[in-house]
């Protein structure tokens, strides 16, 4: 969308909203005003950053060692003539980590197609299997190597958490992949997988936003993408302006959130001392 079109649409929405507001704004839950403003600000900042990146403005992103290591890991597998094992977590596509995991899988599949390395993706959910297969197929097509793609590279094991872990461990012990990538949502199986990968001497890179599982990956893997680093991974790997703009927008929102925390603490302090009557905490509570 061009700038002129964008501002026309944005202006029209604003005018329509103002008309709705001055007509008495029926169905608008005023107690949830803070959520309305939050959605508006988050959406606005992300759209602004994405458009900024699309316009070609240079955006600096610092290096994340774990992401650089992904290509090294695939390269190592190629040199050793061993497969790459990619585990997209144990949850379904309704989890944002799984979606991020499948997106990163697309980039990894491009690398394996380029280097003609074997890729093995055991999954634990039917929809994830379908999505991962589509993602890999597209990557192999884009790299001009559809001949190397076969449906079985993404295969279903089971929905059960520990049976899945046992199955993946068995694959690791028998195929001895040179690189194990764990990118998605994990629970108690994380250490089982990472420990087995460690015991076969594979280079291991993990990425997850599950706070309780990050410690296990940090302990047993060579590189771990912690939380936001994992979500930013697809932007780093693809270098697409829309995604890089999204990362920049999220950075701006983090600064905004930190500012609000500090302002909130100061206002809360004044309120507790009785200097002001306005309670910021009650305003931040969504009814």
């Amino acid at each position: 969308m061009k700038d002129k079109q964008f501002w026309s649409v944005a202006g029209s929405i604003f005018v329509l909203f103002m008309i709705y507001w001055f007509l008495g704004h029926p169905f608008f839950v005023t107690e949830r005003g803070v959520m309305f403003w939050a959605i508006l600000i988050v959406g606005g900042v992300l759209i602004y950053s994405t458009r900024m990146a699309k316009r070609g403005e240079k955006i600096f992103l610092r290096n994340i060692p774990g992401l650089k290591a992904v290509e090294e890991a695939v390269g190592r597998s190629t040199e050793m003539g061993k497969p790459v094992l990619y585990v997209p977590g144990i949850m379904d596509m309704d989890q944002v980590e799984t979606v991020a995991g499948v997106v990163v899988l697309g980039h990894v599949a491009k690398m394996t197609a380029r280097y003609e390395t074997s890729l093995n993706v055991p999954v634990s959910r039917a929809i994830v299997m379908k999505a991962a297969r589509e993602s890999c197929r597209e990557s192999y097509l884009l790299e001009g190597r559809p001949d190397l793609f076969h449906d079985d590279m993404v295969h279903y094991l089971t929905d059960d958490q520990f049976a899945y872990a046992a199955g993946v461990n068995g694959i690791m012990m028998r195929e001895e992949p040179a690189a194990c990538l764990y990118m998605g949502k994990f629970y108690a199986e994380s250490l089982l997988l990472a420990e087995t990968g460690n015991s076969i001497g594979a280079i291991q890179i993990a990425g997850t936003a599950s706070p309780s599982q990050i410690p296990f990956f940090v302990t047993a893997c060579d590189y771990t993408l912690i939380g936001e680093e994992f979500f930013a991974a697809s932007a780093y790997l693809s270098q697409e302006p829309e995604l890089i703009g999204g990362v920049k927008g999220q950075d701006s929102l983090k600064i905004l959130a930190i500012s609000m925390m500090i302002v909130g603490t100061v206002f809360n302090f004044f309120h507790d001392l009785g200097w002001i009557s306005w309670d910021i905490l009650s305003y931040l509570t969504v009814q």
Partner: protein
Amino acid sequence: MNGSEIFGAWVAVFLTLGIFSYLYKDNPFYKIAEHVFVGVSAGYWMSMAFWTQVQPNLFGRLWPVPEGEIAGFFMRIWYGIYNIFGFVLPSVFPTGGIDKGHGTDPHFMYILPFALGIMMLLSVINKLSWLARLGIAYTVGMAAGLRAYAFLNSNVLGQIKGSAVSFVDMPLFSLTGVSIFNNLVIIVGTVTGLLYFYFSKEHAGNFGKVTRVGIYFLMISFGASFGFAVMGRISLLIGRFTDLISYGGATYHYASIWVLLLMVVLLIVWTIKGDKKTAS
């Protein structure tokens, strides 16, 4: 104690020790246990998903038991389709409709998930496999929209609210309760931890020092979480050993002891045979 319980105990002991044998190395016992576990669980989950979700919540809403006679042309056709299904699969579609407490009127909105499910199944036909993408798109889009609100509420607004701590009417320091020091740790940890995830600036100079504090906070919390989880795992291991000990009693005909002995002997034989094969 009946025969089936004793047999169940022997199977449980064999599978437990089979999985534990992985600590030695990949071996036939582990392979048996692994394949049984994966195969049985895949079948079990499929069966569970069908009989606890698809049949009662989808078919049960589309074709509930109607109140009285089926009236109207459309409803006759609708339940006519049901009768055809019932003729093919009477256990899934019992005569008269499915009574799972979803009222007496069909919920036609559920035709949408039914159609999406069929589209997913069509992926086995190459020419129609693209239809499965609609199901994936729906799942991802629905989840993104549904969770955006919840995440914004709990992870953004909730975090800001939780970090706006108080410093009034509390002790300066306390190990367990609320104190000025603890609240200071919360706000410093949150701010520096958040700054660690700032990507559009190099972590160097003063900013680098601040983000290093953030990663220290993160690592301390990961360490605490690691210790807590390991304690939980130890209790799981104790639970398994408790079972093995009870199955090792006379009631179960010393299942744990016999299976363990047999497994050790067979593993020794298997290893010696393997070594000889390697040497030759």
